[in-house]
């Protein structure tokens, strides 16, 4: 039957679709229609762009990381500084776009899920700005490891509902958000944070995040007079990556590299590398690569980065993998932590642990994959203030005497 599904054409090659219980069909159809109308309306696009500029501080800089590129032994490494957005990550792009859409649709209440808390903070922020009551579902494990973000969401006026079921991470948070939406679909807007889930979410999120790639492509051309050899991003659900990749899909000479969470091992349950350990299936409404056992049950995942700790990948990434247009690789916890420390020490930038996976790829493998003269564009999707405690704990256990790195 998987092979049957592979034969059909959906949103992204055979991947995507809208595999949801009937209770969710009406709100999804309504959303699909509302989004298409909004995006076709120049005044909507203008209010979105105005907010990105005046409220979030776009365009974000493209910064040449000269010390990092020496360590990586490549030609150039440019960081697209999504961490410099208001709220500290790329998530605000999508949150502002969808909150504007919620307002336009006349919705009275917004719900959202969050893993690392970056989307939760962005959603809470956008809702505070646009005067929308906001409820965030967050796994209880994630609430413990990303406590600063929980406090931020509450300060911003959002209700944060812990989800204690299962592993208490992003997957369970999405389950609960979908249940909430099914219970009160009429007045509620579900502000999904990544390029995953049922139609139309992957397209909506990609559209609002494509500003990353559009800016970065133009900025790179201005800086180097050419396009990069590779564009690199970490991939949890995949919104920062698809936002970056979308501008380069036609540029066949630009390699697209997605970096998944290798966790602490290659056994089931030890990582979140969907393309090396997974197979196509359906979770959260879309047909995509996911980590599952032989009976079609979803496997637990593990990553030091809460935002990558998710068993499925956005369906457009499955399509890019399938066609070979993008390449996906994995970085394990310890390499991500090393890269985190390296970027702090050598560039004075504290990255999110999620983004540190992409940094680790550039440090460890870009040279062998693209050669010593390669030009690399790296999406620094978020800042790591939220992760400082995790890193301190790790340094205490791994660095004898706590010497300088």
């Amino acid at each position: 039957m998987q092979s049957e599904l592979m034969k059909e054409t959906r949103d992204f090659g055979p991947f995507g679709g809208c595999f949801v219980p009937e209770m969710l069909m009406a709100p999804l159809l309504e959303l699909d229609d509302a989004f298409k109308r909004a995006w076709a309306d120049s005044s909507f696009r203008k209010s979105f762009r105005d907010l990105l500029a005046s409220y979030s501080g776009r365009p974000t800089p493209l910064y040449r990381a000269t010390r990092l590129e020496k360590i990586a032994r490549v030609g150039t490494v440019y960081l697209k500084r999504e961490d410099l957005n208001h709220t500290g990550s790329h998530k605000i792009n999508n949150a502002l776009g969808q909150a504007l859409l919620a307002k336009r649709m006349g919705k009275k209440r917004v719900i959202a899920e969050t893993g690392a808390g970056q989307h939760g903070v962005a959603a809470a922020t956008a809702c505070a700005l646009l005067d929308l009551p906001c409820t965030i579902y967050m796994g209880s494990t994630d609430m413990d490891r990303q406590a600063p973000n929980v406090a931020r969401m509450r300060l911003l006026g959002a209700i944060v509902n812990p989800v204690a079921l299962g592993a208490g991470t992003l997957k369970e948070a999405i389950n609960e958000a979908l249940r909430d939406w099914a219970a009160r679909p009429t007045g509620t807007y579900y502000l999904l944070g990544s390029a995953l889930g049922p139609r139309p979410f992957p397209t909506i999120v990609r559209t609002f995040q494509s500003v990353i790639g559009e800016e970065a492509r133009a900025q790179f051309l201005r800086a180097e007079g050419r396009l990069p050899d590779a564009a690199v991003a970490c991939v949890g659900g995949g919104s920062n990556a698809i936002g970056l990749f979308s501008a380069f899909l036609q540029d066949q000479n630009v390699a697209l590299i997605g970096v998944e969470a290798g966790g602490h091992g290659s056994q089931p349950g030890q990582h979140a590398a969907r393309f090396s350990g997974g197979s196509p299936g359906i979770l959260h409404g879309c047909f995509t690569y996911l980590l599952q056992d032989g009976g079609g049950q979803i496997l637990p995942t593990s990553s030091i980065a809460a935002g990558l700790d998710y068993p499925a990948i956005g369906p457009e990434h499955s399509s890019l993998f399938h066609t070979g247009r993008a390449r996906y690789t994995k970085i394990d916890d310890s390499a991500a932590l090393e890269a985190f420390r390296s970027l702090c020490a050598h560039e004075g930038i504290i990255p999110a642990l999620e983004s540190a996976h992409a940094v680790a790829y550039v440090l460890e493998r870009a040279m062998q994959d693209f050669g010593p003269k390669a030009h690399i564009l790296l999406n620094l999707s978020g800042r790591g203030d939220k992760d400082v405690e995790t890193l301190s704990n790790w340094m205490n256990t791994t660095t004898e005497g706590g010497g300088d790195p």
Partner: protein
Amino acid sequence: MSRLKAAVGAGNGLIPYLTASDPSDEGFLQAACGAVQGGARAIEIGVPHSDPIADGPVIQRAHQRALKAGGGIQRTLELIAGLRRHSDIPIILFTYINPLLSFGFERLMPAAKAAQIDGILILDLPPQEMPDWYSFVASQGIDPIVLLSPNTSEERLAYLLKFGRGFIYMVAREGITGTHDGAKVDLDARVKRARNISGLPIAVGFGVREAQDVRRIWEVAEAAVVGSALIQEIEKHGDGRIFQAARTFVETLVGNSRPEKPMVEIDK
């Protein structure tokens, strides 16, 4: 006419829902036999899943217990085959799509036919995503069941009903299973709209807790579905008493509307 359509179509029916392997394989079989003995008209058997997004806390717990007990699609089919030694009651396989995807349709159909499964409802497979599936299942002599929600539009209602066989599963209120706070929607009018389009009998579920709820549904539809309330009842009892607990609860809901002739003969 299919067995399932005839059974539900007889009216004043109760369809209990149970998750296979909950709380154990033996416990599930006891609950199923108890429900049958208590006067169930048909029975819905859920395939355990790690992420049952349309289910509330009670049925989520059932899924987790079932998975812990080794449940899954393979075991569900085996348990149904086991149940068939005790009863010929119409059985509906109630499932999320991913366990079936992984099992494979080529394997599912012969197994489902061997276990004499009467109907299949895949909660998260709307017909537009895979229209051929519905005709394929029907061509195998099994009824594909469609589910209608209070927020299903008129246009979509007509579309969905083209795919359904056996009976129509109508959700009484917005939300997930076991909820009471979803918006109340005029059930009468919705049933009438469905009857204008389809000749299938109608079963109504979500939020059925007591005999009174069942009576109210019987005023407009052929059958009521009970899930969370039954599972909560079973949760209160240890392994040895599940049969009796399920039987008594179903009897209470059905009241004295049980058919004269017992539909099963079992030795429990």
